[in-house]
């Protein structure tokens, strides 16, 4: 039996420790200059078990997360809130699961008991964001960000390392940015902001076995650039146009099966990861209503991957009714073969109403239909009948691309929300249902929080009942009942502590428990 190589201590921990020290230094008083400093930390510990649908294995999740945030503001020493500002912000995160076994993170060739999972790290550290920001410079016309930063717009929620310049005129704001998309497997990075479809990460543990887990691709730098145009005023009409292009670089496997040439191939050219154009706008028509709309065109896939529209009418001061339309067609990273599989969009149409019954109580409901249709109805299999060899087309050939047998799946769905707030607490209710040919789910979730002694202590309780049926796997249908009991303590204005106990019951897993401890600390100077 081979002995696994000794486990390496994650090098990122040193970085984490260094930045912790930096945060402490930042908090020490220096000069009388009006610089504001903020240090935040969140510690979360969770323990629960995850059981395979087949009984074994049972994964004991023992998760510990620690974040450390640092903010330094007013570096230009300008007290005016709307004046020029330079600030620095960063947040580091350690996300450990000490329930991960060493056999899951160490690859041993030929080990028939190996449970190795490519890319799995026991204690990854990532820099969530870290940038220098300038605002209201050049008389309010100029802003910038330099470093790891987020973007949220019609193209979604995204993170990259680089620079962004913003020019603000009285009518329109222009943004241009460039850098590298945050990619899993690179230092201090996670793959949260990559496009779906490619299993990618750091193959360092597989460096001696390039053919092992070939589908786990080596992560490379991903140059990215984009721009945005956004209207500045008036407040009742707003619009934003976004364009973004991301490239993949580096050598990756380009085949998994030994074909005629007998060897796995690699591809090592700069290529498109994603290229999309998005537009979103909203308008408010006084006290009468409001509308929103948006569209995303995928330039790589050459189709509209999403569009939506919403129209709300302000019936009374407290009652709003409206309708939502949503179209979605998934797209994937340019390296992924899944872009080129046959897929058709899911479309949803719902009506909604929200009613602020009193200053304390508000309710909202929505209901509608979601449908998916295709030109290929398997109940009328003329379109893709297998040929004599049992194949359904080959080498890009469709048997009968002109034949069309449209079929549709329709779901009915809805949800209800309720919220009651008072000075020392709140209660919430949420109910959902979805019914369709693929199954159904419905349930209700009721919770409440109450604070005592001026908010120093608190208690929470949440109960839920959900029932579901999976028509593709009827044996996985079940009813679940669960509750969460929590306690809060705020020892001072700078910290709060939360403890929660969760207990769920369903016939598939029996009893399931989860404990959560959370500590938040914020220090300002």
């Amino acid at each position, binding site marked *: 039996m081979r002995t696994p190589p000794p486990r390496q201590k994650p090098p990122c921990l040193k970085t984490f420790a260094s930045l912790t020290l930096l945060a402490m230094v930042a908090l020490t008083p220096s000069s009388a200059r009006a610089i504001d400093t903020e240090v935040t930390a969140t510690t979360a510990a969770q323990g629960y078990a995850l059981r395979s649908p087949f009984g074994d294995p049972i994964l004991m999740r023992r998760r510990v997360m620690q974040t450390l945030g640092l903010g330094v503001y007013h570096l230009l020493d300008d007290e005016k809130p709307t004046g020029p500002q330079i600030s620095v912000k960063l947040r580091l995160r350690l996300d450990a699961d000490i329930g991960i076994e060493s056999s899951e993170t160490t690859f041993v060739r030929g080990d028939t008991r190996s449970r190795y999972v490519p890319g799995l790290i026991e204690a990854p550290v990532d820099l969530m964001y870290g940038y220098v920001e300038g605002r209201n410079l050049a008389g309010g016309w100029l802003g910038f960000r330099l470093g790891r930063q987020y973007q949220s717009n019609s193209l979604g929620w995204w993170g990259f390392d680089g620079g962004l310049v913003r020019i603000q005129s009285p009518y329109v704001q222009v943004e241009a940015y460039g850098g590298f998309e945050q990619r899993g497997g690179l230092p201090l990075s996670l793959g949260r902001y990559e496009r779906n479809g*490619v299993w990618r990460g750091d193959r360092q543990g597989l460096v001696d076995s390039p053919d092992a887990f070939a589908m786990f691709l080596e992560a490379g730098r991903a140059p990215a650039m984009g721009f945005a145009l956004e209207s500045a005023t008036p407040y009742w009409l707003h619009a934003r146009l976004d364009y973004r292009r991301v490239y993949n670089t580096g050598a990756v496997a*380009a085949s*998994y099966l030994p074909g005629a040439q007998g060897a796995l191939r690699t591809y090592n050219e700069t290529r498109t990861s994603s290229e999309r154009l998005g537009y979103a706008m909203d308008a408010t028509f006084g006290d009468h209503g409001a509308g929103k709309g948006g569209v995303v065109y995928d330039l790589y896939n*050459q189709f509209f991957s999403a569009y939506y529209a919403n129209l709300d009418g302000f019936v009374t001061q407290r009652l709003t009714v409206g309708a939502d339309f949503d179209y979605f067609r998934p797209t994937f990273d340019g390296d992924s073969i899944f872009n080129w599989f046959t897929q058709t969009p899911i479309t949803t149409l719902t009506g909604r109403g929200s009613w602020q019954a009193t200053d304390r109580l508000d309710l909202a409901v929505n209901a509608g239909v979601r449908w998916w249709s295709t030109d290929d109805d398997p109940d009328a299999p003329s379109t893709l009948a297998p040929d004599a060899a049992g194949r359904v087309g080959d080498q890009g050939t469709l048997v009968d691309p002109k034949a069309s047998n449209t079929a549709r799946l329709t779901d009915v769905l809805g949800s209800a929300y309720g919220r009651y707030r008072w000075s020392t*607490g709140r209660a919430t209710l949420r109910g959902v249902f979805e019914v369709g040919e693929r199954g159904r789910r419905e349930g209700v979730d009721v919770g409440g929080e109450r604070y005592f002694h001026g908010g120093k202590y608190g208690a929470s309780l949440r109960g839920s009942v959900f029932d579901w049926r999976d028509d593709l796997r009827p044996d996985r249908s079940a009813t679940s009942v669960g509750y969460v009991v929590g306690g809060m303590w705020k020892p001072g204005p700078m910290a709060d502590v939360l403890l929660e106990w969760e207990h769920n019951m369903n016939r598939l897993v029996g009893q399931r428990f989860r404990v959560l401890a959370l500590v938040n600390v914020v220090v300002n100077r």
Partner: protein
Amino acid sequence: MSRDLSPLLLAATCVAAALLALVPGAQAQGDQAPAASASADEPAPPPAPRAPYNAPMPGGSATPRKLLPPGASFPDPGPSKVIYPPQQIPLRFSHKKHSDKDGLGLKCTECHGAAATSVAASDRLLPSPKVCDGCHGTEHEDLLAVKAGDPGFGSCEVCHAGYQPDHGNNVARVAMPTARMRSNHKIHADRNIQCESCHGAVQEIDLATREQLPRMKGCFGCHAMSGPGKGKAQNDCNVCHEPLPDGRMVSAYPDGKLLPPRWMGNLEHTADYIERHKRVAADNTKACGSCHNENFCTDCHDGRVRPRSIHPNDYLSLHPVEARLDNPRCTSCHQEQQFCQPCHTRAGITMTGSPGNLRNQGRFHPPRAIWSEMPRTRQHHAWEAMRNLNACVACHTERDCTVCHATQAAGGRGFNPHPPDFASRCKSAASKNPRPCLVCHEGANPRDLCR
């Protein structure tokens, strides 16, 4: 299929009982009981005489919309109680009588002299009672020994509502908490912006109350104008709202939170706002960033603690069916290969994995004859993939698909997965990224494959 639901029902009953205990009404009954008995022992105070001028309009009727500040709606719920905490103004006063051109004809600044030079919300702009002395014949020089004026016109009860002769020098106190905003009267006065532009037609009402304080919608009349026309009226939130060091505005106060109104981009944080917020974030993150920082977003969108407002209890059991029914929502927070696949691989659900993970593997999907073989039915994996490919990708890697869908020359079985319109897009896609072509097709130049 029989299920023993008795433990579930018992647990549900316990949860319901505990939830009821959290509801304020139950506790409030206990809190109020002593007060109710105390009031029964004490004689009720005599009703205060209804005096004129102790409300904005005679008889306490609603103030007409045209007299309210710009931006007030009708019926008017009043300004924000968080920005302008409730006041106590136990006075009787008629602005109309004092400013009426046929009457005294006073200008605002004759009594509120400090208003024109005030630069902070904390400045006290109520006129000193000494201002009244000149006409009413009273003496407020020493507030511990105020002298009344002529009986009737100069007596204390003329202005001090509820005053009784036996109260001596004691009058009910005026309480006006400082507004939680940045207010610079001087900037506005220097630009010749009249009081009425922000406070409404105070000269037409009797007692001025919180009703006459500026409404945010009214501020937007100048501060959100298009282009250069707005002059120096900036539209940054912190022009008026109290700022935090990081540039956001203070939105949480001990007695309430500032929440955006419906008329402002339909931003009202309704009970279902969790479902609507993405439409706001799509084009106006500046609005979100006025109150929220990155950490607020990442708690859900890149979080490590399951947000209960989105994923309810027992979500580990619930998530497969939700992903199957409505997959698009998952990808707004989860990158599937990074978030879903490690767990699925560890649990032995995936086709791809190490021998130790696959040892206990069972069949996750419907039987092979239905799921994979011909003829295809609505239960076939091809239909599920066409409808919800994101769900497939949460477990399957490319290799799982290429075994059958790669061309025979490339080692697969040649089942063509391409859509009917693929030929029109193939060439352009191959020119931008030929790598996916090479996964399934043999050949040095993928563009040669396009027809």
